[in-house]
């Protein structure tokens, strides 16, 4: 790269200089203030690890794209007409793989495909975990909630996934196939099961372990437009002959499990309007 060493004298920033630069960069990042995330040791949780993987996949793409242009000596319009943004990863079938066995949850080419149409990605921590093991229909399920109100204005969801880790089930479930189904909670009642809407389901051998990925794009968009109707998700597990299985037996990792295997929601966004920085 043909740049020269600058002639600055390198020294520590004074406090007011540091504050000035912080304020300027925060406004460029579109942040009203400096975030103060709570939970310590959060960096090793599943969502940040997954997002760091997406970040690395993306920055390598960007460097390849710049290098490619520099070598080719002329701007190349990408063959598939992908809009300016992240270059497309090697093609993978769009269909979500039933189980990605990596832990922590590495982003697959399928995920980096989502990046092509996105200029922002957000992962959301699960706010609540309620197991309902006794319900009127003897149906075991676990509830999850995500707060999507933190999404900056003017962003539209292009894809969204609910990711949850399944460990190997106990030996007594060997040679059994389990059906994992995710529902959107439509309406809740005080003394009977909630009204739900089936979103996605997967069949997995009980002895398999890994990340289950459910497509919840439509639901996320619905929650974005109608935050008051965000009543969370429900996960149910059954055998192929319809017998309901509790979460522990199904190998579903809960709050007391390792941080790197906690469930989370990830959503890919496209800015539907240009963010104008207010004049300072």
């Amino acid at each position, binding site marked *: 790269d043909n*740049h020269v060493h600058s002639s600055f004298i390198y020294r520590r920033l004074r406090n007011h200089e540091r504050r000035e630069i912080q304020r300027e960069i925060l406004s460029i990042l579109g942040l009203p203030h400096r975030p103060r*995330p709570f939970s310590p040791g959060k960096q090793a949780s599943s969502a940040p690890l997954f997002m760091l993987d997406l970040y690395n996949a993306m920055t390598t793409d960007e460097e390849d794209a710049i290098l490619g242009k520099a070598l080719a000596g002329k701007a190349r319009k990408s063959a598939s007409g992908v809009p300016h943004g992240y270059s497309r990863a090697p093609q993978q079938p769009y269909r979500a793989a039933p189980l990605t066995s990596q832990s922590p949850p590495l982003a697959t080419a399928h995920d980096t495909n989502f990046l092509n149409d996105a200029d922002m990605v957000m992962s959301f921590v699960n706010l609540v975990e309620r197991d309902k093991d006794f319900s009127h229909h003897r149906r075991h399920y676990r509830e999850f909630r995500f707060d999507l109100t933190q999404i900056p204005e003017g962003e539209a969801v292009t894809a969204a996934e609910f990711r949850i880790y399944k460990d190997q089930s106990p030996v007594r479930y060997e040679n059994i196939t389990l059906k994992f189904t995710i529902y959107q909670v439509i309406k809740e009642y005080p003394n009977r099961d909630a009204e739900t809407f089936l979103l996605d389901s997967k069949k997995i051998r009980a002895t398999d372990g890994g990340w289950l990925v459910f497509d919840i794009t439509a639901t996320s968009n619905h929650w974005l437009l109608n935050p008051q109707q965000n009543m969370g998700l429900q996960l149910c597990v059954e055998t192929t002959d319809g017998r309901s299985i509790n979460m522990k037996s199904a190998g579903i990792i809960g709050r007391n499990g390792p941080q790197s295997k906690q469930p989370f929601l990830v959503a890919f966004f496209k800015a539907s309007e240009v963010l104008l920085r207010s004049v300072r």
Partner: protein
Amino acid sequence: ATGGKKKNHGRNKGKAQQKSSPAPKSGDQNTSEQRQACKKHELYVSFRDLGWQDWIIAPEGYAAFYCDGECSFPLNAHMNATNHAIVQTLVHLMFPDNVPKPCCAPTKLNAISVLYFDDSSNVILKKYRNMVVRSCGCH
């Protein structure tokens, strides 16, 4: 930015001025040639130095660069000059007090991506355009 081999700008501007020849008079060709031609210079913005490593996961900082230097006649090829800048440089030679030299400014800028936590420990990965100078030129 890291300390450079070249003259000290910034606070020691006064001293730097004395060391070299008297303040260049505009249009005075040979003194302005001592000043470097329009070029990209190194400038690194460190998030770590700003004390932000508890909420910015990646990157630790980014090389922003900046453009600095003279856009004097003759504007040769590698200075990315626009046709207009070439003409303006000529006119500056004729009427130095009326028409300034063209400016040394970024001609190509790159985006960076930043991965960070929000207040609720959700994680955001966002792309910010025009953050890094890729090339400078006379405009």
